[in-house]
């Protein structure tokens, strides 16, 4: 394992020190491993927090700031944070208008956030609403499973709900915007290589020189199937077609198209992918209203990509376009 780290046990704590030093607009609560807006709580504004296991940077800490998250809780690598963290974050950002919890659909995350919400209600009286993202079409959605995983849509949701909160909307309104984003978004990912968890010291899974894992999760969870190495064009088909079919997205739909890198994939390749994705969408009569190309929800050093499509209306687009000022997404300010 070759990583720019000191001690595998301290990666998250040390990265938080780095984030704190690099971003004067952000504060860090090192005890609770929380990154939060230096100006929190914002009186009268709905607070938005998220969190999850670390290793997906810039998600979530890189999305803290004006127009997006108020705080992010960092768990150990690939391990959900504990309720104390979300409770502390909730208190930090509660400006009296309530707090939205953005939770990716993993059993651990859901339960820990749930306990935090219960504690918040009991302890601080903060009003909390949780919205769970579950956009990964690689997982069969049935009552017989833990349900779909929350992946790329989480990034888009945090931006769009963040803009709604910044406008002064109520907790229920912001939560409804968030639910709509999750309902209208779908994703699928593909790995060219495994990631290596620092504490494990070796790759999570083995993948031959001629194989790819289609439908991989952002923790290196197995996907739909292992397929032979293919071209960007073929990979784009494998990812976009199931995503389109699932919602379904149809001729005339407007979307935000998000081509994401999984951490070890350079931008050059993501643009080659984006060209293919865009071509396929155009072929289906799906209109790309906005795009996002880059590594925003990653899986440590995994090489690979995911494609997220979000069906949007003008209202959602104007929330997407609203100013945002975070380490990883910034415009309009």
């Amino acid at each position, binding site marked *: 394992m070759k990583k720019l780290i000191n001690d595998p046990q301290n990666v998250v704590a040390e990265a938080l020190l780095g984030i704190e030093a690099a971003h004067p607009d952000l504060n860090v609560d090192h005890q609770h491993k929380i990154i939060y807006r230096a100006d929190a709580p914002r009186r009268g504004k709905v607070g938005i927090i998220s969190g999850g296991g670390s290793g997906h940077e810039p998600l979530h800490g890189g999305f803290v700031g004006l127009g997006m998250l108020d705080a992010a809780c960092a768990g150990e690598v690939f391990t959900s944070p504990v309720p104390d963290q979300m409770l502390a974050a909730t208190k930090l950002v509660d400006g009296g208008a309530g707090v939205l919890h953005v939770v990716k659909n993993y059993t651990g995350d859901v*339960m820990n956030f749930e306990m935090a919400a219960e504690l918040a209600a009991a302890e601080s009286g903060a009003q909390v609403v949780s919205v769970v993202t579950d956009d990964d079409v690689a997982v069969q959605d049935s009552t017989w499973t833990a349900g779909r995983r929350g992946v790329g849509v989480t990034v888009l949701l945090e931006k769009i709900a963040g803009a709604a909160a910044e406008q002064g909307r109520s907790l229920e309104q912001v939560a409804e915007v968030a639910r709509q984003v999750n309902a209208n978004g779908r994703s699928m990912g593909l790995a060219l290589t495994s990631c290596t968890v620092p*504490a494990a010291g070796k790759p999570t899974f083995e993948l031959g020189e001629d194989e790819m894992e289609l439908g991989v999760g952002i923790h290196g969870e197995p996907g739909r199937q292992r397929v032979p190495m293919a071209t960007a064009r073929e990979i784009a088909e494998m990812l976009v077609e199931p995503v389109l079919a699932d919602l379904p997205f149809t001729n005339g739909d407007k979307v935000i198209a998000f081509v994401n890198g999984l951490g070890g994939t350079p931008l050059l390749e993501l643009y080659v992918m984006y060209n293919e994705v865009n071509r396929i969408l155009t072929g289906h009569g799906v209109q790309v209203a906005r795009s996002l190309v880059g590594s925003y929800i990653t899986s440590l050093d995994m090489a690979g990509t995911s494609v997220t499509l979000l069906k949007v209306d003008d209202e959602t687009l104007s929330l997407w376009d609203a100013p945002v000022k975070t380490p990883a997404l910034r415009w309009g300010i």
Partner: protein
Amino acid sequence: MDDMVSTAGLNQWIRAFAELVAENKDSLTDLDAAIGDGDHGANMHRGLQAAVAALDDTKPATASTLLNKVGMTVVSTVGGASGPLFGTMFLRMGAALGDTAEVSLTQLATALRAGLGGVVARGKAEPGDKTMYDALAPAVDALESAASTGVDKADALKLALAAAENGRDATTPMLARKGRASYLGERSVGHQDPGATTVALLMAAAIRAPL
């Protein structure tokens, strides 16, 4: 009386559980690597080390404060799925017991039943979902019936352990329907559930303590 469990005994139980998890940390992690994300051993170990440290610090004098402290600590240090599940289990056990320095076998069975209820409330597991439920539920059943039929403490705990181990083994052929393993679908079949394995260790710890 012989069939009573003292707070000191409960304290020993948690310590023995922490020991057994430490001893089996790597094999728990291997089980989780096969059908999950390979952190179950590390998760439980982190939480139980913290729980033991908390007991050292606070020296709880009653059954309920002791189990509450353990539950709180597990919730606050484990994360993932097992943190809320095992944490809630201990918290509900504590809540069921009240402020007494010792508890009867029947009370212990009742507390474990409440703990099981917490696990279900939290995780919505059903029998056969291939989770810790599948080891814990039979153990609770066994302990309850042993207590109600007057079996003595040591034998009752052996019956509970045997039931937990049977339940644990029965998870192997199951198809996972909860937690991370459920993403694997058919491919989860043939692997023993890590959480159920930890439940069997909890029951083994009751004998090692001894309770």
